[in-house]
């Protein structure tokens, strides 16, 4: 209860400050809109289905891109973790590649795939693949060896060993990496969509700029934040809680 009250007070104060600044008209309304006009923009956007379509398109893309990243990243991470040569050579390369902002892949993607959805997916994959790979590599190393031995001893091998033993055994160690990968995927997607007419949320955001509609710009920004927050809070928090219950780990916070 107390916590909820604190939230309400904090956000009410924030809204009040925003309203106050907007009503003081220090900046013209087309640069600094009121919360109400942003709310209206949100309502209108959902009303004419623009936002629904944008959300659907963006979510589909991020799910495909992120899904590919997770599968590829797990294979790569496992490979790097279980092979000394790969670990020594690829390990360093992966870390250094991670310092490259994912949108730097955009020009390359354009030349390879052309101006289409595949280029966007490529940027999303490059954005999240590395963190999933590194997380998986790390998780595989942190995972107690005994699980693999016990699994092999009980007759698991090859894919079964990976699917029923190595993957679940390393999940608690990779879940934060998966979460980070998701955040990178989401950011990369919006960035790429802003650079190319594509129906997604990024494009709707740019449309707001083109129309000089600050309320719409802020409305879409809020949407992007909200979706990121919901996925993080529902999917990943749920996954973490589930793992904690099973493994009997103390809550992280």
């Amino acid at each position, binding site marked *: 209860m107390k916590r909820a009250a604190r939230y309400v007070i904090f956000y009410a104060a924030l809204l009040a400050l925003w309203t106050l600044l907007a009503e003081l008209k220090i900046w013209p309304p087309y640069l600094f809109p009121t919360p109400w006009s942003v709310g209206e923009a949100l309502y209108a956007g959902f009303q004419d289905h623009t936002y629904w379509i944008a959300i659907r398109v963006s979510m589909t893309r991020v799910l495909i891109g992120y899904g590919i990243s997770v599968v590829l990243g797990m294979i790569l991470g496992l490979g790097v973790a279980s092979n000394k040569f790969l670990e020594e050579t690829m390990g360093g390369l992966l870390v250094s590649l991670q310092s490259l902002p994912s949108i730097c892949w955009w020009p390359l993607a354009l030349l390879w795939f052309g101006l289409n959805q595949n280029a966007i997916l490529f940027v999303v994959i490059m954005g999240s693949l590395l963190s999933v790979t590194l997380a998986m590599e790390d998780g595989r190393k942190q995972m*107690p060896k*005994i*699980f693999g*031995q*016990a*699994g*092999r*001893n*009980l*007759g*698991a*091998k090859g894919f*079964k060993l990976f699917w*029923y*033993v190595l993957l*679940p*055994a390393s*999940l608690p160690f990779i879940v934060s990496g998966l979460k980070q990968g998701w955040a990178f995927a989401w950011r990369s997607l919006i960035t790429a969509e802003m650079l190319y007419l594509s129906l997604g949320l990024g494009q709707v955001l740019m449309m707001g700029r083109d129309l000089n509609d600050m309320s719409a710009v802020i409305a879409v920004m809020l949407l992007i934040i909200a979706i990121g927050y919901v996925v993080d809070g529902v999917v990943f928090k749920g996954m973490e809680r589930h*793992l904690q*219950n*099973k*493994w*009997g780990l103390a809550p992280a916070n």
Partner: protein
Amino acid sequence: MSTHAQAVPHRYPNASKSHVPARAVKLGPVSVAPPDRARSTQVSKVGLRDICLSYRTQTGERLLALDHINLEVRAGEFLCIVGPSGCGKSTLLHLIAGLQAQTSGEVLIDGRPVEGPGTDRILIFQEHGLFPWLTVAENVEFGMKMKGVPKTERQEKMRHYLRLVHLAKFERSYIHQLSGGMRQRVAIARALATEPDVLLMDEPFAALDAQTRDLLHDELERIWSETGRTIIFVTHNVREAVRLGDRVVLLTFRPGRVKTEFPVSLPRPRALEDPEVALAARAVLDELRDEINRSLEAEYSAGVKPHIEPGDHA
């Protein structure tokens, strides 16, 4: 099969000398002699033939961990292996389980050489061998699931083995909700559920408190006599070895060699505090003490902890 120079004279302790001569004859001082040998190959469940294991340390020198280990384990026998830390007794179990490969020599199961892990030999670890992401029931069913046993049959067997270890009520629990003793009982049920011929136990009760350990000794003895499995049990606790085993094998400190075999023919069920068990343990302990001293000397003269070979957390 060849006999080797390192064959040590097999002795047996005074305590058991007077008990059952029949067994003492079989496993007595001449048990490496050809006629006896031939007989034992016919019935041996697990055979270790000239097992050697060496590996390279971080400084690049080769270290001999196991040196020409020869052992025959009869079907249905309860064999205990004792030795000081670093004698390679846990490693030996990993070799039998097929989780690690020896440098030379052969591990035979029913006369056939071991090539990798198999569900005819299940290893029970000291701790943490259970899967924390699965329930007790799913842990016990795991081996059968890997084999492709149908679900109804799996559940039937799972219930049977959980009843055997008195954990029927904990099917749905997760591992972290159980006490240390209950976990090891789940591990035993999981191992038995794959219906292995040989149970390999790597100091399974070392991390438990004394009372729980006593209880589990009784349970293990009961389960062993009910199921008729062959058990190879590694421990550094001599009393435990004498209390449980038909035979106790003492390994030397690095390199691990079979130093002495002690047949234990005390009547069952036994208890840890039986005077006969104490007496027999005394004889083993006298021999073990030399090895422990050697291991301590090595530790002190090196000024660092002795290098423990991989897989050996003894």
